[in-house]
């Protein structure tokens, strides 16, 4: 590995970490799309900042662009407050307008400005190591590594300092304001941090992909845990590992680094989405199927419980009467027999004492809707686990 390669991976890892932390809170606060809006609407801020500072990595430019990000949030909330349109429409109206202004500003001043809309939107990590930071003529490393490292340090510092406040206001805004932490201050604090991170990251990974780095690791982690601390750690791990894996994929394919980082993030998310132990697609589908069978079983047992006459309990009659397909009836009858709840003699189905007891309990639960009746059955049945 050459030095630039190590530096690129280092920058990628730092960017991924700095994005993942505010990303967790954005996802939890259902504001994931704000990051998309900010990442687009900082463009005019960057352009104006570039006019003033002539340096893409200047702290002033980052500050100015971050202010544009906060202005976006204020505008969205202002429009939302008028009640004329819903929040998502407000977001969808504000950021394209600001982005358009940015694009037009760049196009009109194409001669004076070495800024390419493609570059802003897509970024180019491969060039990041060539922009060095010189302190007293000594090369101390790539500029963007220092910038993002600074942002990451501030983010982590603020996270540790305000962890409790952030946690409370994220999950219970009412309680948080009752306890005296203003949700508004925390909200704008989070928005400012997100803006600064997006601006700092845009020239490494681009405006759209910064959204992926913010949302995808957090969403992936959210499918695996519901503990905030674990979620933070997991999303940092997902972000950093995808960033580094993405770099090598890009190296292999000779394609855009940020594109392949996102693709790796996408694959990781897809895998977790499909296979997450409790919240993944397959687990959910399995659970829903199981619940459907159990509801059928319950209906079946209740039907048996209600009828003493033989004609109602004939196995073929059940097929017609409850109107199930053959396969489903078979599954249900098998399940009931396996659990010793019914016996079948001469095609007549009869409830066993165990089945009778179960049916009575279930009936009582349905009538009273009290959990304690079925507490001990929860282990055996998905249905009652909610």
């Amino acid at each position: 590995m050459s030095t630039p390669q190590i530096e690129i991976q280092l920058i990628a890892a730092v960017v991924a970490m700095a994005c993942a932390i505010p990303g967790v809170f954005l996802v939890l606060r259902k504001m994931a799309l704000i990051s998309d809006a900010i990442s687009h609407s900082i463009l005019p801020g960057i352009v104006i900042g570039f006019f003033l500072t002539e340096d893409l990595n200047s702290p002033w430019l980052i500050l100015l662009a971050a202010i544009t990000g906060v202005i976006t949030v204020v505008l969205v909330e202002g429009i939302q407050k008028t009640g004329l349109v819903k929040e998502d429409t407000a977001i969808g109206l504000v950021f394209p307008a600001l982005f358009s202004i940015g694009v037009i500003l760049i196009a009109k001043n194409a001669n004076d400005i070495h800024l390419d809309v493609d570059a802003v939107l897509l970024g180019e990590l491969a060039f990041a190591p060539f922009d060095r930071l010189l302190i007293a003529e000594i090369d101390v490393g790539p500029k963007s590594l220092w910038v993002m490292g600074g942002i990451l340090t501030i983010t982590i510092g603020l996270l540790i300092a305000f962890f409790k406040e952030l946690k409370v206001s994220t999950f219970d805004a009412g309680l948080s304001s009752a306890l005296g932490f203003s949700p508004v201050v925390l909200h704008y604090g989070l928005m400012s941090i997100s803006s600064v991170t997006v601006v700092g990251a845009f020239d490494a990974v681009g405006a759209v992909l910064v959204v992926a780095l913010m949302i995808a690791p957090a969403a992936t982690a959210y499918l695996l845990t519901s503990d905030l601390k674990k979620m933070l750690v997991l999303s940092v791990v997902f972000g950093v590992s995808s960033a580094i894996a993405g770099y090598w994929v890009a190296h292999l394919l000779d394609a855009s680094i940020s594109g392949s980082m996102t693709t790796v993030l996408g694959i990781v998310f897809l895998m977790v989405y499909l296979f997450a132990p409790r919240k993944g697609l397959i687990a959910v589908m399995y659970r829903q199927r199981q619940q459907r069978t159990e509801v059928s079983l319950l209906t079946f047992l209740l039907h048996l419980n209600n009828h003493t006459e033989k004609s109602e309990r004939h196995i073929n009659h059940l097929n017609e009467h409850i109107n199930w397909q053959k396969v489903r009836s078979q599954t249900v009858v098998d399940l009931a027999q396996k659990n010793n709840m019914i016996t079948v003699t001469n095609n007549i189905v009869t409830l066993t004492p165990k089945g009778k007891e179960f049916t009575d309990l279930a009936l009582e639960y349905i009538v009273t809707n009290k959990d304690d009746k079925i507490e001990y059955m929860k282990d055996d049945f998905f249905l009652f686990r909610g």
Partner: protein
Amino acid sequence: MDLKEYFSLVFSDYTLRTITLGTAILGAICGMLGSFAVLRKQSLLGDAISHAALPGIALAFMITGTKDTNLLLLGALVSGLIGTFWIRGIITKTHLKSDTALGLVLSLFFGFGMLLLTFIQKQPNANQAGLDKYLFGQAATLVEKDVTLMAIVTGICLVVLLLFWKEFKILLFDADYTKTLGFNTRFIDILITFFIVLAIVLGLQTVGVVLMSAMLLAPAAAARQWTNRLSVMILLAAVFGAFSGVLGTAISASQNNLSTGPVIVLVASVFVLFSFIFSPGRGVLFKQVRFWQNRRDLKLQKTLQFMFDIAKTHEDISHPHAIKILNNFQGFAKTSLKEMEEKNWVKVQGQEWSLTQDGYNAAENLYKQ
């Protein structure tokens, strides 16, 4: 070229005519379908789908090796639809919320698309240039064939809209009721989503991936402010969309270095801003005016009640009193007093006022309500 010249050239110049017609049709279809997106609270679906269409364009190019617009747009349509259904899958099957799902699909598909685009660019194939026009759109590349395609799709969309008008409308406002009536809500839902995706894909060439969502939203959001009727809203949105298209093209053609997409979006945003402020029913301005009016009425009524309370303790209700005692309502008394005098509720003589019979009755009426 200035605006006047543009409008004199638009009917004779082939390129200008094609582009103007194209952006107008695009604006109209986006406005029409965008109304549904806005009312269904799926405003940002457009943003997600337009980004999700990018890998489809790249893959279509990689598979066929041609840059035929129709084939590329077909690829975009397929990948946009996959994105849409994945969003649905994430929302219905996991506990992730819609904003996260939209953001995920948007950024992940776009990233994958960028990977493919950069991968294509490195291939030893001279044909690949120009794929990136789908990022920001280039209205200038519209040719008559594209406009014909847009017109056909708009026509089909219009027919379907009229055919399923009742179903679309009822699903929009009361999904549960629709289900109980026995309509196949899933089918209607997929149909309308399909057309929204189609409109987005059509616009990619003109305004590009990034700004497409505004094209869909802005005319509809502007139209929403002027009416509460669905049919009027859709019509208005189509008109706003078409006007934004034409005006945007005109402005960008009349200046150097102005790409059409951003200008169209800005024009549409101006429409929205204007509607937000000046719409008579919902607009911010008239809402504020009504608010002031109500406040003034309330103050006047308070003064009148105060007068009534004093007057009723006297035998002669028109017994004059000093204006000074109205000072409880400092500053407000003057204008209120003037207004009441005009209504002939009080008589003012010098520094004293007296309630008339009319005023007494009016005040009594206030208490009765």
